[in-house]
């Protein structure tokens, strides 16, 4: 089966889910992605991405018990699937391949 390709926000969100582990819920994911990309993503943008990743079977989710701090609403916890892990490995391989051989000339410019 072909590994689904990932957009940049999809990749950031998927990596945030892996990084956060058991604490991977919407709010924590949005904070992690926003801090690392230095871009303030809206709640809607992150949730739409999470939903799309779930539809692609790269993530799975479950809801917690309702919490008073959320006005009686549940939290949605996300975990990465085997397909999601495969997509991350593929994204890493492609990125390494694309960057191969161009490190030295441009790295000082980026620093």
């Amino acid at each position: 089966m072909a590994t689904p390709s990932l957009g940049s926000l999809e990749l950031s969100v998927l990596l945030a889910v892996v990084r956060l582990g058991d604490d991977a819920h919407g709010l924590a994911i949005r904070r992690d992605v926003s801090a690392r990309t230095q871009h303030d993503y809206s709640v809607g943008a992150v949730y739409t991405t999470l939903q799309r990743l779930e539809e692609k079977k790269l993530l799975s989710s479950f809801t917690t018990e309702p919490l008073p701090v959320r006005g009686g609403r549940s939290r949605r916890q996300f975990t990465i699937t085997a397909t999601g892990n495969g997509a991350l490995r593929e994204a890493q391989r492609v990125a390494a391949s694309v960057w191969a051989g161009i490190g030295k000339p441009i790295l000082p410019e980026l620093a």
Partner: protein
Amino acid sequence: MIAPPLTVERVLEGLSAKSDFRDGILGDLAEEFAERAESEGEAAAKRWYYREAVGVAPHLFYAWVRSLRFREVRRLVNVIFGSYFLVVVLVTVLQAMIRGTLETLGVTVDYLARSSSGDSPSYSLALVAPIALMYGYCAASLDKKTPLASAILFGIVWALLSIVLTLTFSTSVPMWYLIGGTSLTLVGTTAGGMLQVRNARFSSAVSSE
């Protein structure tokens, strides 16, 4: 816990059927609002909440449209026809009452007749806004699950039908009338829906503090 602005929360709830997606978003907004209200003050937190609500609204509406199934579409068609029928009856009765009263007083009023015959676009345009408001309110009242989404959908259907019918049957309608009529329809139905949502008590999940 400091609760987010209730009216805005209700409006957002009215945009999408109850789902994990909707509850996840609204829960996150409520949680972050409470945190911001404590650290930055309630006024700043409210400003943040309004900004986020504007950004989240299209996502909720789009998620709802994507989730529509045949049964849901059938229900919406009933809502649209039901509200259309209600408003037509209401407007006809009101029109007859106003005309009757004015004619009894000896005043000749022909603007209603002219506007309904389509001879005078500006008059009929002036009538679009309140009628759209009524349509939006009725559509939202008839739909307890997604009141605001139904009102917006009604506006979109009505606006599209108006454009198609006007372009098909009338050659002399100015462009400003089409654009103005469509905008008023969409704004009016949305405002009507929001008005209804503001008054309604359909949410059981929201804290009433």
